[in-house]
């Protein structure tokens, strides 16, 4: 236990970096995901095809490979803003198709009768989307979106293997220093991760229940 208390500042620094990665990559992936989702449901065929190919390729690439590209190959190609930023870029790219899929499934999840009814009382395309489809889609989208961000929080640990000092990196460093207290140290790191993931999961579950009542 003393190994945990002694190294608390190191843990907290790692935790701060994990939160930073989560926030940065989360915002980036959200924006990129909206763009990809919009392209995927757009009437323009070429955008749709591009977004589909992008989603399929990125979703089927392992995160480790993406971060390997960011940490080793981008500096080699003379683009090196620092490992933290590189990891944030990698996580953003990796998470964006999942965000896009969550958004798209939300829009598709609105029953088609809603749109039919809106169209039949004479609403235009924009009105149908903004007054009928979107308000329902947003509610349905939030729980899966939170799940994507939970996965992102766990995925930031992979950045620790690529020269970023976050929680996993802190765990590696401290277990190297204190080989006698490995179990306590790793459990402490796990608790830090659970501090992020479990509240998010509870929020998602509560929202899901609320939406289920509304529907």
């Amino acid at each position, binding site marked *: 236990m003393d190994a945990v208390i002694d190294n608390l500042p190191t843990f907290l620094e790692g935790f701060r970096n994990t939160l930073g990665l989560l926030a940065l990559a989360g915002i980036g992936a959200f924006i990129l995901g909206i763009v990809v989702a919009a392209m995927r449901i757009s009437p*323009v065929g070429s955008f749709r095809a591009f977004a589909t190919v992008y989603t399929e390729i990125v979703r089927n*690439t*392992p995160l*480790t490979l993406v971060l390997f590209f960011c940490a080793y*190959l981008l500096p080699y190609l003379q683009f090196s803003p620092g490992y933290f930023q590189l990891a944030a870029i990698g996580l953003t790219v990796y998470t964006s198709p999942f965000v896009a899929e969550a958004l798209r499934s939300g829009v598709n999840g609105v029953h088609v009768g809603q749109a039919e009814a809106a*169209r039949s009382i004479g609403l235009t395309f924009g009105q149908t989307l903004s007054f009928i489809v979107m308000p329902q889609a947003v509610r349905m989208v939030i729980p899966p979106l939170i799940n994507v961000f939970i996965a992102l929080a766990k995925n930031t640990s992979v950045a620790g*293997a690529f020269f970023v000092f976050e929680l996993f990196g802190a*765990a590696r460093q401290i277990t190297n220093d204190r080989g006698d207290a490995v179990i306590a140290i*790793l459990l402490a790191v796990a608790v830090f991760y659970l501090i992020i993931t479990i509240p998010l*999961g509870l929020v998602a579950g509560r929202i899901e229940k609320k939406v289920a009542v509304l529907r």
Partner: protein
Amino acid sequence: MTSVLYDVPGPRARARSRVISLLGIVLIAGGLVALVVVLGLPKASANGAVQPGLWDASRWDVFNDVQVWRTLGIGALNTLRMAAVAAVLALIVGVLFSFGRAADSAWVRIPTTVVLEFFRGMPVLLMMLFILLVFSTGSFWAGVSALAVYNGAIIGEALRAGIKALPSGQREAGLAIGLTPVATRFRIEFPQAFRQMLPIIIAQLVVLLKDTSLAFVVGYNELLRSGNYNLSQFFGNRYQFSFFFVVLVIYLAMNLSLSWLARIIARRTGSQSGGVTATDTTKGPAKPGDPNLVYANALGAQSKGQY
């Protein structure tokens, strides 16, 4: 979906959308071509030395070496082996978790729930490191057991949801014909839940295959480590991009074919799992004499088709 949202486009709208589509193709293709050209330009590094571009033949000649392909093949086999062992164990762990979570006795249910939440909320990588350091199992079993436990927890949750979604009459019928609660779960509820959840389970197995690359970090010689790391350390930095490219293609080939298989199975079970009620409603009334029934069915079919 989209066809409901706007009117059927007329000739002018069609022409306009064709123009936008063409512009989009030009834009995207132009971007890709520009990327390829920029990557292919010769590069001057910081010390002034000029290196050939990434598509230059001198960066790809390692692939004439059989040993390179052998190393890549062994790496891919190691990845597949880890994925296969972990998948089998994950299914077993998942079944155990689902029974634990759906148990009648709170003494089983609550501890299982706590353990499951703990495993689900923790990164796989941390679990691998934990198992490697605490149980000193070696990198293969560290990777396998972490993947099995993590994905098992998720599969268990899916199976539990499947059991819960079954009509309660299934369980009651099983109990009523004299099966014990355990036998009812095994022989009545579980097979149905498993079939219903098969698409989710297979999707999770694709995730598992992708996550084997995390074993790179704990030092297992899988595709990423042997292909990207060891080979480019051995042959030098100039081949780094080429190795990355080939490893990416191998990964995409493996994962896309598994996803494709998952989709086929999902479609097949999707039509089956609808069961008795679904086929009854889509077939409509046996005698199409009643105009009211036919009309209702036609309306329903219309909405469904566009959805």
